[in-house]
């Protein structure tokens, strides 16, 4: 059962990593505008200037 001494810290560490990622994303304001984020993903803003000018 010595494997537990590796697996449990790994499990908790991964969980903490997820928690930290979530808290970071929240602090970065990623949940402020959920509808807008969905639309921004499909906008052509990141294309080179000449291609993105269609709107």
């Amino acid at each position, binding site marked *: *059962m010595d494997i537990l001494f590796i697996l449990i810290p790994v499990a*908790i560490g991964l969980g903490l990593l997820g*928690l930290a990622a979530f808290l970071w994303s929240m602090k970065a304001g990623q949940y*402020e*505008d959920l509808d807008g984020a969905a*639309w921004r993903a*499909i*906008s052509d803003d990141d294309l080179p200037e000449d291609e993105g000018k269609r709107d």
Partner: protein
Amino acid sequence: MGYHDRDLSSFVTDVGDGIVHMDLAVEGVRCAGCMAKIEKGLAGLPGITRARLNFTSKRLAVEWSDGAIAPDTVVGTLRDLGYRAHPFDPGAAKSAEAAEARRLLKGMAVAGFAAMNIMLLSVSVWSGNITDITPETRDLFHWISALIAIPAVAYAGQPFFSSAFAALRARRVNMDVPITLGVLLAMGMSLAETFTGGRHAYFDAAVMLLFFLLVGRFLDMNMRRRTRAQAENLAALKGETATKIMPDGSTRLVPVSAIDPGDRVLIASGDRLAVDGVVDVGTSEIDQSLVTGETAYAAVAPGDRVYAGTLNVTGSLTVQVTAAAKGTLLDEVNTLLEAAQTARSNRLRLADKAARWYAPTVHTAAALTFLGWVLLGASWQMALTTAIAVLIITCPCALGLAIPAVQVVASGLLFRSGVLLNAGDAVERLAEIDTVVFDKTGTLTLPEPVLADPGAVAPEALRMAARLALSSNHPLAAALKVHADGLAPVAGAREETGRGVAAAIDGIEHRLGSAGFCGVSADAARAAATDASSLVWYRAGEASAVPIAVSQGIRPDAEEAVRLIAERGLATMILSGDRAAAVDAAADRLGIEDRRAGLTPADKIAVLDALKAAGRKVLMVGDGLNDAPALAAAHVSLSPVTAVHLSQAAADAVFLGDSLMPVVRSIDISRRARRAMDQNLWFAALYNVLAIPIAVLGFVTPLVAALAMSGSSVLVTLNALRVRMGPDRLGIAPQPKDGA
């Protein structure tokens, strides 16, 4: 840009480093294209450092180097792009709620993380307990669980702990008291088990309970924030601003919060007053319908008192701002409003009512369990463990979710039907009503005037009159503007304030305005006048002038809405401050028998009190300043979005648009929601009836507790989601006859 007559600098805040910030509510944002268009359009302005549109809240944050551009330029640019925008009053922006929501979300994340990891360990212990786990391994797992659970509960449980503490200090019991007790006891007992190397620890139950409850609370909070944000945007777009006259005589547009008593403000014709005051310079006519319900205009001269919410019709006025003084209408309204709101705060929410019988019941059961086992000769540790297990398993997981879950679903449905909730418990109260009381002016009738009979005017004359109306600020012109069919305003049209608009088209002079302005004799004007409507005259060249009747139109679907309300078995009634003739006309058309006219705010409250004394539960629908106390005094209240600020704040919910259907729809949705709430409460009661004996007999293990808790939570949530389903999901279908 033609926008430089406004000074918006009081909406701008300094964020440091020479950068200034302004928030705007933007109207008409519908898709990603709008977002890109606005952000790119503003980025093109000199000095702009940031322009970001929040699509969810429809608010735009703009930052630029101080002095590079005027705030007007931003609003003007947006207008050129085709969006109406209004700066947000920085004083009105509330960040406390956003912080609270972030706090709940963080708590939820922490509780979720802890619940998952502890569950991982707990499942191992449960399966180990029936197979071959060594006590050392079990102890290790319990210790790790404790190390995760203690900080998690201390952090995520704070909203419940502080609310329970506040309730206990006020000698009340709310739902958070049993929650707090359950969580703390579960933690305490589990720690004791861990220290003594026992078999059962309830860390997972405690953390999972917090997680479920935080989910419910976060959803609830989020929905309320969303509707609140929408309401605030509408308020900003309505322009709660005033044109302040500075000591040097210049004028500047400022948010209402920046106006103090003693300031002087300029009110142009066609403007709605945002402040109360005394007329200093100028004479005019004032449309007080939003304040008193009276539809006839009142003449004002220097020295007369004018109120926020009224519309300045003819001349321009300089008004000296006053605070609410003794003996004025506003003072009376405020006093009545305060009294009504105090009475209202004593009202018990459904959840707290449930908590009132719930908490004593389970706490007594736990105490009896302890006594019973001791009397039967069990060790006191065993008796205590069993008693605590009773508290843990009955901990109101389902009960805590039963009502919030339904409220979230119902307020989402209401939001989509154009009803924004101010009060979270409005849904449960809306379901109980048996009488609907309407205000007339602005509630049953449209807030803007409409043509009394568009067919009575020759189409060509109507088109030309409408085209002229486009150049006018006069409130009556609004009724004609909608008939302009996309025609452009006449170039060179000139408006004579308070009289009318004149313009030359193809060499012929067209006039639109008062009888005198169009060359109609006073006798002819008197002959054409009626009681129910106001007349606007139109004249082309030397042809004889045509009268166009404009009146307060009944909302287009008011008749159907009133009929549907009657169909649901509810009594209807009109309480109006307007003249009897005007009230009778509207009431007869809508088929409302019970009507009272010429009421003061105190009269309205008296009628509501009489109804309450007779055991009736009243839904008050009103918009005027004179309705505000009645809105607060009624069992539950609705207000159209065009209502004055005070009334909107006093109402439990605000509905959007010209239709009266949201009133019917909100009753329907609330009744369904209330049924689901009752079912959920019954389910929670049934759950406890089953769970308590099992716990009292000492059969509860952490596994049983976890299953019971999550199972019951999922069930009540599913039942709440059922509110969205059914045949009348989107439209207004016949109401089932088994109404609550």
